[in-house]
């Protein structure tokens, strides 16, 4: 069995008595893995990151790095580095000095430092910026310097605390790809905190979804997106329609579910088991609804209530006997408002979830 790089065992934290920020849970992070902590604001993900970094003390539980307990180890001795949300670049030092700082602390020979800084600047595409003050750089450039500074010490684990949140959306798109490229090029293990699902889905090897101070589901982006275990996870990862229904029966690869508007077939998630007659929530992602009839599809007849053109796709709102159904499609629905459409959903994209 491979020993995980970092193991968290029953870590808990509260700032005030009775108000838990982190509830006890276990988590393993593997070598060379980019792991995302994804969750809404206030769910405890930054607190967890700071506990891992040693900047905050946990109330209970163990933090184990490479098989060794590090609970009482000072931050500077943990061999972890961090990219902060606001980068925390020192304004009195230039780009070179910022990146070289950690290596100087480790008393690495000057020549080696120069080589390493030069390589890192090449990696983050900032060659020639050595002498610039960090205050003279754009947001994207500052972000890259922060990343280079954190990578320079060759950390066992790199921690990133919402590093893209201060950038505009276009730069964020570019930096998403950059960060994954750089981390993979250096074969770095990383924990990345964000509330942005696009960042998580596009960069992560694995994602841990956090809710109310604990991790509620862990998996690859595909696993979480297509096989969420809860309505919370499903909703957090993308626009989705929820319908109340009841399990009629379970067959080999699907459930038959029913409510007053439809009888549908829904995919079986091996991690979730439901009994006949159990009340459940059916989840259908908005982009999984099509206007074209297909084989093995569930259908529902609905009236078009709203239509919003978004450029690369169009968002529709349909209504059917009190149900509201959001649809997001690149196809154009030719009908006018109040016209009726047959909506088609592949049964493999019809998810059965625990009742909300």
């Amino acid at each position: 069995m491979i020993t995980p790089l970092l193991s968290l065992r029953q870590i808990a934290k509260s700032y005030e008595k009775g108000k838990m920020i982190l509830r006890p849970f276990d988590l393993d992070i593997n070598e060379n893995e980019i792991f995302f902590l994804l969750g809404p604001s206030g769910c405890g993900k930054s607190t967890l990151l700071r506990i891992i970094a040693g900047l905050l003390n946990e109330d209970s539980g163990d933090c184990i790095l490479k098989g060794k307990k590090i609970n009482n180890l000072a931050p500077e001795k943990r061999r972890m580095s961090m990219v902060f949300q606001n980068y925390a670049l020192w304004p009195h030092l230039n780009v070179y000095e910022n990146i070289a700082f950690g290596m100087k602390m480790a008393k690495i020979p000057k020549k080696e430092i120069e080589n390493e800084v030069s390589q890192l600047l090449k990696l983050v595409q900032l060659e020639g910026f050595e002498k610039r003050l960090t205050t003279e750089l754009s947001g994207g450039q500052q972000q890259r310097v922060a990343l280079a500074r954190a990578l320079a010490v060759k950390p066992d684990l790199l921690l990133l605390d919402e590093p893209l949140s201060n950038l505009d959306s276009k730069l964020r798109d570019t930096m998403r790809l950059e960060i994954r490229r750089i981390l993979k090029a250096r074969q770095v293990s990383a924990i990345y905190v964000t509330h942005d699902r696009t960042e998580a889905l596009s960069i992560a090897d694995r994602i841990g979804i956090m809710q109310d101070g604990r991790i509620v589901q862990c998996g690859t982006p595909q696993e979480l997106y297509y096989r969420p275990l809860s309505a919370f996870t499903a909703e957090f990862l993308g626009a989705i329609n929820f319908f109340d229904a009841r399990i009629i029966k379970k067959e080999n690869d699907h459930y038959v579910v029913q409510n007053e508007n439809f009888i549908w077939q829904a995919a079986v998630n091996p991690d979730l088991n439901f009994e006949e007659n159990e009340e459940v929530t059916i989840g259908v992602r908005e982009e999984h609804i099509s206007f074209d009839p297909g084989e093995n599809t569930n259908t529902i007849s609905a009236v078009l209530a709203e239509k919003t053109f978004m450029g690369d796709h169009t968002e529709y709102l349909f209504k059917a006997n009190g149900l509201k159904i959001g649809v997001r499609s690149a196809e154009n629905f030719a009908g006018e408002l109040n016209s009726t459409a047959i909506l088609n959903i592949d049964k493999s994209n019809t998810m059965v979830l625990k009742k909300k």
Partner: protein
Amino acid sequence: MNKFFKAANILHYFSFALLIAFLSVFLLLPIYLVISEGLHWDLISEIFRNPVTREGLLNSLKIALLTTFLTILIAFPFALLFNKYDFKGKKAVSFFMLLPMILPPFVGALGIQQFLGYYGVVNTLLRSFGIAPVAFFDGENKLLAVAIIEALHLYPILYLNLVASLNSIDPSMEEASHLLGAGKLQTFFKVTLPLVKNGLFAGCSIILIWSFTELGTPLMFGFTRTTPVQIFNGMNEIESNPLPYALVAVMLFFSTILYLMAKKMLRTANAVTGKGSRQSGAYCLRGFTSWLPFTAFALLAIISLLPHIMLLCCAFSQEYYQTLLPKVFTLIHFEEALSNPMVIPSIINSLRYALLATFIAVILGLTGALIQHKWRLKGGLLADILCMLPLSVPGIVIAFGYIGMSAKIDWARDFFNPNGNPLLLLGVAYAIRRIPYVIRSASSGLQQTPDDLEFAARNLGASEKGAFFRITFPIIGAHLLIGGLFAFSFSMLEVSDSLILAQKSAFYPITKALFELSQFLGNGPAVACAFGVWTMLFLGATLFLASTFAGKKSTDVFKF
């Protein structure tokens, strides 16, 4: 540009012109006069040839450097303590730290003489243990005593600047350093210290110039070998001996050098100060340890208030000689102070001078801030530089310049003549020195008030004037009030201008009356102490008001 904007613009430039004219007459002209009269090679070389004046200059420099060093020693650890820890009583210590400023150090000197004098508390204690008494105020010790007294009075200025700088450091700057392998000391020297240079230099330069030019404290200790005291003593023969002009010019030269050096360092430091996004990085102390910082702050307050406590003891004691505590307590000195013909009028005089000075300083400071940060007029920087100039110009230079103007310039003779009623003269002199506090406070308020707030009001039908008075003015009002309160408090405490420009006893302000009373033989010092206690209470209340209103804004007042 429509008619309205043209008219408004003319009004702005007219205000600008008035401000420049005022500062030219009451700030630049006296400086020019002092320089033109004093800057003669034979006079300057006489200062450096004459061992007495040379020693005076050297002593003043020594006092300034020592005082600044001592304030750093006191203020830095306490600013770090305040910034890095959350502890019990943290709110109260902000007021503690302003307390030493409730009395000018020269009045504190009266108290400290009782404490460290040859027959004072410490020597009584030493004698009781069979140890020979120490002459704390002899020879070189006198210089040390002046520096300690001034440091105990001035450290709040540096402390406030440092706290403001430390608060502006994002905690993640230090956390990043720790995570990259730097320990606490390395992080302090490589990250924290460079980032607080701004506050350190700002505070130090004010203290350096203040203590270099301080007249009252060395005068009270009879330490005549300092330049300010030599200037003060030379005033009587100014008509026949122009050496004091040269001394003032040399003092101004040194102050300007100190100011420019600090400014140069500040420019570098300004460029590197970050703005914190995650403010609270303070470590929360719990249990017994949560009271330790408060205890440390309280101890510092007690030590720095020792002169004030001794002043109280002297004021209430019938006999306080070779004993630890007064033998007999009495209220007689307070009665004597009340019945002294100098005391009540001096309080009224000081109130009049200080109120007039506050009014002038607020008007001029606000105008300067509006020119620079709101109207953004061409040449606005000039207004800002001129308004900040008094920080580098010692009070003694301005006071001496006024005396010179009354003697040398015909049209200025009546207004600047200190032998008449000096209400306007002292009001203006006090105000000039307080403009920097008000302009910093007002500028800080204006910078924190986005233009959009007024634009929104204009957009909803308010006139320019209406939008200013209904929106901007109430918002910056708190800042102005703080600047005004500090200007008022410091005007009440002003020493140099008061000692030089108030020549007739009927027009003495508090500080001059205190000085004169302390020089009386017999019960003079005790009556001065009783009077000092009243002053202390009154100014304590004013500063309490100022610090209550100010909160974090009090640091804006001392920005450089």
